């Protein structure tokens, strides 16, 4: 492995070279013609000034907040529902057996097709986007919690019993921590899907949010704004992901690998 400064330098180089190449190909003619027409590809300077403009004028904050709020709601509702149902199914194998084909069916459905339905049912406000995010987050959390309860080591379970734990104490001290640890290990995926649900929902029909911003720009062929929207969205997701990593480090100290990843 390379040392940290060298690594950072290399990473920076990739960004600089890509941006330089993009700028070169969209502005400087090669053999008499520009290879990437700016109408379709814009250029880094225009995109950057668009981003700066959004932040200076402050118009972006409203959209960022809306998307953030939708993501948070989708994540919270989806997670709580996933934990409750996952726990219930894992502890009641008969219920799980009855619902199994329907769970598989619902999970197999591409969620985008639900967006129009949710818009019809819940309108163009934030709730149709939240609903879309929930359907994505729910299954990730549900499957992980279900697995977590199912995969409790039989020895640890027998140990709990021999130490005199009642069923309620087993739930609290054995099943619950195990289920939560699996849930936390899917945190990155779940948070990512919450954002995807929000943005896709906005894109398909809304009045605010990052997805709306991109969709609007696309509608008027403002490619610079489309790219600017994508960059802001990427930065937004990276920030959220950093936050998740931080939370995860705090909560999963007891795990051998610090932070694992399932799903």
């Amino acid at each position, binding site marked *: 492995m390379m040392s940290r400064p060298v690594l950072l330098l290399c990473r920076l180089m990739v960004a600089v070279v890509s941006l330089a190449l993009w700028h070169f190909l969209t502005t400087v003619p090669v053999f008499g013609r520009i290879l990437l027409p700016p109408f379709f590809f814009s250029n880094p300077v225009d995109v950057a000034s668009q981003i700066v403009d959004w932040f200076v004028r402050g118009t972006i904050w409203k959209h960022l907040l809306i998307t953030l709020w939708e993501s948070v709601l989708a994540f919270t509702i989806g997670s709580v529902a996933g934990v409750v149902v996952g726990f219930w199914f894992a502890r009641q194998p008969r219920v799980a057996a009855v619902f199994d084909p329907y769970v598989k069916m619902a999970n197999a459905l591409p969620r985008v097709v639900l967006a129009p339905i949710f818009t019809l049912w819940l309108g163009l406000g934030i709730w149709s986007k939240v609903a879309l995010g929930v359907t994505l987050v729910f299954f990730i959390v549900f499957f992980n919690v279900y697995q977590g309860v199912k995969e409790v080591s039989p020895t640890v379970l*027998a*140990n709990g019993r*021999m130490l*005199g734990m009642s069923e309620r104490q087993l739930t609290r001290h*054995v099943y619950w921590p*195990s289920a939560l640890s699996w849930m936390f290990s899917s945190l990155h995926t779940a948070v990512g899907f919450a954002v995807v649900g929000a943005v896709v929902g906005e894109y398909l029909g809304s009045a605010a949010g990052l997805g709306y911003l991109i969709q609007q720009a696309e509608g008027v062929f403002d490619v610079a704004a489309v790219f600017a929207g994508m960059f802001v969205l990427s930065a937004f997701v990276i920030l959220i992901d950093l936050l998740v990593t931080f939370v995860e480090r705090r909560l999963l100290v*007891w795990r051998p690998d610090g932070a694992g990843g399932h799903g």
Partner: protein
Amino acid sequence: MPTAVALDDATVAFRLADNRVYTAVEQASLSVEHGEFVAIVGPTGCGKSTLLNVAAGLLKPASGTVRIFDQPLSGLNRDAGYLFQADALFPWKTALDNVAIGLEIKGAPRAVALDRAQGWLTSVGLGAFAGRYPHMLSGGQRKRVGLAQVLIRDPKILLMDEPFGPLDAQTRQIMGNLLLELWNADRKAVLFVTHDLEEAIALADRVVIMSAGPGARIIGDWRVPLPRPRDISEIRMEKEFHALHREIWSVLKDEVMKGYAQSTLAPGEVA
């Protein structure tokens, strides 16, 4: 004081996936007196652990009776502490919380439980490791925490399933000495399963030999006349130790060979 553990004609059978019945242990009778340290030795897969699980109430015998302090056992054996072969600590709890949980379950206030747990960690030599999670401890240290976790509840009977099996030879001896030292303090009834005859003789008052499975039986019962307190690594040099070892081994050897032959047969064949 009544007999701590009394198995009478206990037969344990399992139903296999293909619906055949596999008899693991047949008509085993075994008793452990109060304050007595009994070791069960037998070839691999002979059903030693099965017998232990019957005494723990984790398994029900198909026939025969189990009495704990003269009471027929139904459900789990509430008088027993069980030390497992595999890792059984709660990975999401620190060493201290793992030990304290035994008391917390009983309803002890958390402060009291933590205080007593710290004391037990100190007596197993891990006073400075209270805040570590199981994965940060070595195999031997995890066994020490396990021992403290079981002993803090002060069970009248201690059931141990090859507890030091996964450890290296030196650590096993150290753990054996620690166990004897702790046991000496209040002499609980101990049922200790192992495949290591030397370990059994060094630790126990009585060594019980089981035949190779399936349908394992108890085929021998020796008293160990060695004086206590013992040092496990030194007692192995004694003449009496060697004599007893030779005597028991002459019986055990045949069973070990049978057990080995058994384990190399194709499934379904019966020798």
